[in-house]
């Protein structure tokens, strides 16, 4: 019997799991594909099948909105917000993760506060933050202050917990061994800590970005006068919704594909250069 990942012929489990994986991908993409098809409709469009008079007008509507919401404007706020949340989540949760590797007074308190912050109903926190801004800070809500904080209150615990899973594998004896071998602090970090922590950092970044980019309840009252994307989409569904929403889904999917193909392509190129 061969190990699944060892070279040679593939075990039968490979085929079963490959089939399972394919089914899962179909499940994930099925609705996305119907969105893709239904975004190419004419003016008398409906949000369900059948497709009515194919056209690309809803993509035009998306970028030059007349009746639908200001998707582009909302995106111009959501993207920077998500990027800021992503960067802060990585920085703050990575440093905090290292702190928890040692015992210190209050560690449990901070840990459970973070868990509670993850769990609290977003709508309620949204109001709590708005009230805090009004009475304690005398500030109006805005996406780059109150909403940023609201998003961090939820992205950070996610990031912290993932860091726990990562750092649990980083045995302090590795670092000690590096020191014993005469490595400087920086060398140790670079050659021992970074390779182990890096994939986790990617996961934290991924979560940080997605959690903010898609957050509705915590944004509800904290964004101030200008909506972020999920709120704009929500208010669009409270009015005459059009396939512009589907067009948005299509554009998002295609752009993500391009980004990921680019990223994978550059990894491949770097790998090839290295192997030379």
């Amino acid at each position: 019997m061969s190990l699944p990942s060892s070279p040679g012929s593939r075990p039968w489990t490979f085929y079963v799991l490959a089939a399972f994986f394919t089914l899962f991908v179909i499940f994930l993409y099925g609705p996305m594909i119907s969105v893709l098809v239904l975004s190419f409709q004419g003016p008398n469009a409906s949000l369900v099948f059948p497709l009515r008079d194919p056209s690309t007008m809803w993509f035009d509507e998306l970028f030059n909105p007349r009746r639908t919401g200001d998707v582009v404007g909302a995106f111009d706020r959501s993207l920077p917000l998500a990027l800021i949340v992503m960067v802060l989540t990585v920085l703050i949760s990575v440093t905090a993760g290292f702190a928890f590797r040692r015992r210190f007074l209050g560690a449990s308190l901070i840990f459970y506060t973070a868990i509670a912050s993850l769990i609290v109903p977003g709508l309620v926190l949204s109001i709590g933050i708005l009230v805090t801004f009004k009475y304690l800070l005398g500030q109006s809500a805005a996406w780059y202050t109150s909403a940023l904080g609201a998003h961090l209150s939820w992205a950070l615990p996610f990031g912290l917990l993932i860091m726990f899973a990562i750092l649990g594998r980083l045995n302090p004896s590795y670092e000690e061994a590096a020191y014993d071998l005469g490595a400087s602090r920086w060398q140790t970090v670079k050659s021992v800590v970074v390779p182990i922590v890096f994939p986790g950092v990617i996961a934290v970044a991924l979560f940080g970005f997605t959690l903010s980019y898609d957050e509705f309840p915590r944004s509800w009252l904290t964004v101030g006068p200008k909506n972020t994307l999920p709120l704009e989409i929500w208010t669009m569904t409270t009015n005459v919704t059009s396939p512009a929403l589907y067009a948005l889904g299509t554009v998002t999917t295609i752009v993500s594909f391009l980004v990921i193909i680019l990223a994978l392509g550059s990894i491949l190129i770097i790998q090839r250069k290295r192997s030379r």
Partner: protein
Amino acid sequence: MKKTGEILDKVISRRAVLKGGAVAAASTVIGAPTVWAQTIKDITLNHTGMSYSVLADIGRQAQKDLGFKIEMSVVDHPGLLNRMANDPNSIDICDMEIWQSKVLVPQDVLHGIEVSKIKAWGDLTPLYTEGTFAGKEVSREGDSPIKFIYREAKDTAGFAKSKTDFVNFVPSVFNADTLGIRPDLTGRPITSWADLISPDFKGKAAIQNVPTNGIMDAMMAFEAAGILKYADKGNPTQEELGATIGKLIELKKGGHFRALWSTFDESINLMASGEVVIQSMWSPAVTAVQTQGIKCTYQPLKEGYRGWGNGLGIVSHVDGIKLDAAYEYLNWYNSGWVGGFIAKQGYYSANPKTAKAALSDNERGFFYEGKPATADITSPTGQKTNSAGDVRDGGSFEERFSKVAVWNNLMDQAEYLYAKWNEFNAA
């Protein structure tokens, strides 16, 4: 140095205010939207409200006509109340439903608007300003506009019992709601609210998941069917609410409702996809189904309509030249363009005179006078909604509004209602 700069700024801005004020006064005399002094161009008014009335096109047109910036922000109903209660400074013009003013006015977050500064006040529909329509008193069941529009004095945040010179909001858009049906699928004529709960439509009916509106539709239906009786549907007692929710739960358990819709868009899809053949609906939703080429009727019913209306309030923090701009905007709002635009969406403007003038003969006949269309009728975005020969469901403006039976409202027992509605959701 810094101090001198500050003082200079103050002097300059004061002058600007005086100058702006003079122009504003002049514009009232001339009557048309005027080109303002340079400084007014720097003003940005934030107009916040719900999606059905806060439309990007309105802001764009206002900006063109008035010369200063109008920023339209769309929120949901609870979003507006919560934002106004906790962060009113982020909003300048509050576009609220009448029943929302009931919550917001006592919070003292709105200006008392001076009636004398509202041009054409006398032309505004008496539905709001007098509580009458076509010479008759309109229904007082529910939150009828007349009960909430006036306040005693400029600085008293409350509701006056009779007409005064100060209002909490300027009337804007309004309509009368009824049931939407798929005439091709109901298989029989629909004449009464009772049809909403008729066993004929088991599994094919829907109501709104907005407690304050959903309960009104339910009460209309149960009363029409002779199942329950209400002393005042605009202000039911706990017993009446309890009985109504009890009946609703019975219906839900029996599989009567295919769904409860929470968003406008859901109501369109339920109808367009044939999941539902009879449900409470909003007028533009019916139009949206029609534009998909599907037969959908906004069915007038013998018990009458459920009316609703919006008003524009000025938020307290607005002052100086910005306040002048706000008044100018409110005057522009009822000066015709908006009226013509929203008519095509199926709503009515508080100033029928200017709204009618903004429509073509064909459109005026169709939307206001109950006449058959003489040519195609199009939506504000230019899509065809009706063909020549079609008559608007519910007939003329007069006919429709003489039959408003009850108004959207926030009843005294709302807290109890919301707890009970939760029970309905959980059942």
